[in-house]
């Protein structure tokens, strides 16, 4: 029984590390890794769902049915989930790469602010100004009319 407790602890630990990583990190790559951890935790949890200590693989060789067989369904599920997870991680990393190329940053907060700005720009909305904001700097020195 100890094994199973350790394994459960591991699964929940991975999930919590993953969540914490997503919440606490600002760096995009770390966040993506954290997602990987989270998924690993979830997969482990799924595998553990029907864990039987000392069971053999659910493969029937030569019509001989093993006495204790592991449940094949979670294994199939996990296999699929891992494939999907890898795909998504790859997609995420490639997107992150593109963002890094375009904006030169992987900092989540910077990306968020930049994203906000770009959306506003694309929509043609002027940035919000506040009465307390410093006056905009004049872009060109004021020309004096009739000064000549």
């Amino acid at each position: 029984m100890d094994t199973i407790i350790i394994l459960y602890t591991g699964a929940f630990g991975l999930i919590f590390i993953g969540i914490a990583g997503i919440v606490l990190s600002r760096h995009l790559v770390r966040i993506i890794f954290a997602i990987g951890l989270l998924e690993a935790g979830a997969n482990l949890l799924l595998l553990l769902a029907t864990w039987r200590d000392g069971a053999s693989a659910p493969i029937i060789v030569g019509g001989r049915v093993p006495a204790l067989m592991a449940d094949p369904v979670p294994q199939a599920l996990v296999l699929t989930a891992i494939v999907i997870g890898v795909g998504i991680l790859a997609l995420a990393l490639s997107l992150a790469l593109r963002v890094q190329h375009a904006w030169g940053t992987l900092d989540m907060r910077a990306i968020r602010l930049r994203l906000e700005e770009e959306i506003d720009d694309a929509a043609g909305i002027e940035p919000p100004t506040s009465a307390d904001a410093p006056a905009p700097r004049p872009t060109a020195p004021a020309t004096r009319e009739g000064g000549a």
Partner: protein
Amino acid sequence: MTPLDQLLLLSALTVVVPLFTGNRRITGPLATLLYTGQGLLLLRMAGLGYGSETPVSSAVSLQVLGLELHWRFDALSWFFALITIGAGLLSSWFASGEWAQRYRDSGSSLRLFHAALALNVFTMLVLLASGELLSLFIGWELVSWASFLMMSLGSNTALRYAMRYVTYAFAGAMAVLMGLVLVYTRTGSFEFQAFRDAVPSMDADTVWLLFGLFAAGFGVKMALLPFHLWQAKAYAETPGPGAAFLGAISSRMGLFAMIVVLVQIIGVARLVELPVPFTFLSGRDLLAWVAVFTIIFPTFTALRQHDARRLLAWHGIGQGGYMLLGILIADDLGSAGGLMHVFNHATYQAVLFMSVTAVIHRTGTSDLNKLGGLVARMPLSFLAMLIGIIGLAGLPPMNGFVSKWLVYRALILEGSPLLFLGAVIGTLGTILSVYKLIHNTFLGQLRLEHVDIEEAPSSMLWPMMILSTVVFVTGYFPGLVLDWIASVQAAVGLPVLAHHLGGVHIDKGGLDMIWVVSVLLAGFGVGALVFLSGNRSKRVHQLDNYAGGHFLTADTRYQYSDNFYPGLMHLIGPWYRKSFRWLEGGFVSTVDTVSQLMQGLYRHTHPAFYLLAVVVFALSWVMGGD
């Protein structure tokens, strides 16, 4: 096919026809003709108005989601429909001649105007015909959006105010919807009768809630305080005849709905039993006070306007208060007064809006500081406005007096001095305000630029004269209208007013307008005799005035118009605090702030944080709940 179906069908046809005839000149007269047809169909049901016929129901009924929708006309519907169709007919007539040409030339769509007008009439008829709460709500919404269409026909300003209207109206409609769904969950039906049967068994909290929801929801349309801000500007900016129509009847739909729900179903007696916590007032008193403040505040706001249309529109709000007040008294006199005021108000308000529109048509402005002396050029329009303002101010011999008299008399009988005082203050303010209106428009010095203008065209004059006649005749013989009122009272379940052609006979001081008006006319005759007994008078030019030894010249026109009541304003001016605008603004700012917060929620914070929060919360709740 019952007469009601025919009426609704013809009314729907009236909406469609302008869409086909379009901007052609024929549209107006055609629409007018169709309204006449509607009027005739309504007269086929005249038995309703005289209480000699049972309610006419429509052959159409629907079953949606297991809810039955049906429509019918009773005396109350008939009475309001009469006003609606009358107002539609005369507004459309008013809008068919020269006005239409001008409107079209200014690039506006006549097609849309007539369609909007007809749509308003149609939707109102649908509302009036509603046979249970659900069709009432559907009609209610239709009316709201139809009048939104009408209001937004004007300029950009009109659009802005129409927008404000639609915000108020829809919020109100939501309150109504909430109310009727509540009713449904209590009774399992939207039928009036089921609701009425369920009221006695409801506890006070429920009735309070329903009362609040319905009063607020319908009150928005009536522009009851504090939901009145939208109305004046929205109506004022509507194209002239449209404003006459809306001002005459549109917001009375709120009153209609209130009568149906608060008087006919819940019953005023039940409202009296609802105590307002921490006070000695009841629910009815509360609403009555709202009505009185609706009389006072908008009336004194009107006093400060210097645009004729806005002035009238603000008065329209104030007059609504008398109607509600009268109906809430709920005895035979008061409710008759309130109901009669609906009719009376429609007649004189339409006449006033029409006459102001005629002035705008000729002079191009409704700014009271830029008019004056027009009586010499537009005497018939002046006469129409004079009759209108006497009606609005509620002075004899016009019909406005009779309805207000009934309300006052009821208040005296009931013994509500403060409500009475409030109502009278409103009337006095109205007198001041309407005098300013007629003085600044028609009296005083004629301005140079208006020297050559002519009387309004006959297409405008006819409706004005007809309405003026109605205002006077129903003031002279109020029994004509009181006949209908009595059958309405019977239909609604109020005590029925015993009346005669001249008014009412009560042991403790009745009213006989035939005598009062006759003696007044005779008095005028005597006055005229006295006047004529003097030496012959000589007409002089308007510049031939006493001016302290100074000669007035043709290019100097003195007109006393701006800040017409300086003494009064000096005293009560500081009381105009724009509190309601402040309130509205405060509400909007609050929503704005919260909305900003919500956007920030979506924008600024790390999404996963919420996720975490929710999961942790949910899991802990689950574990704890186990």
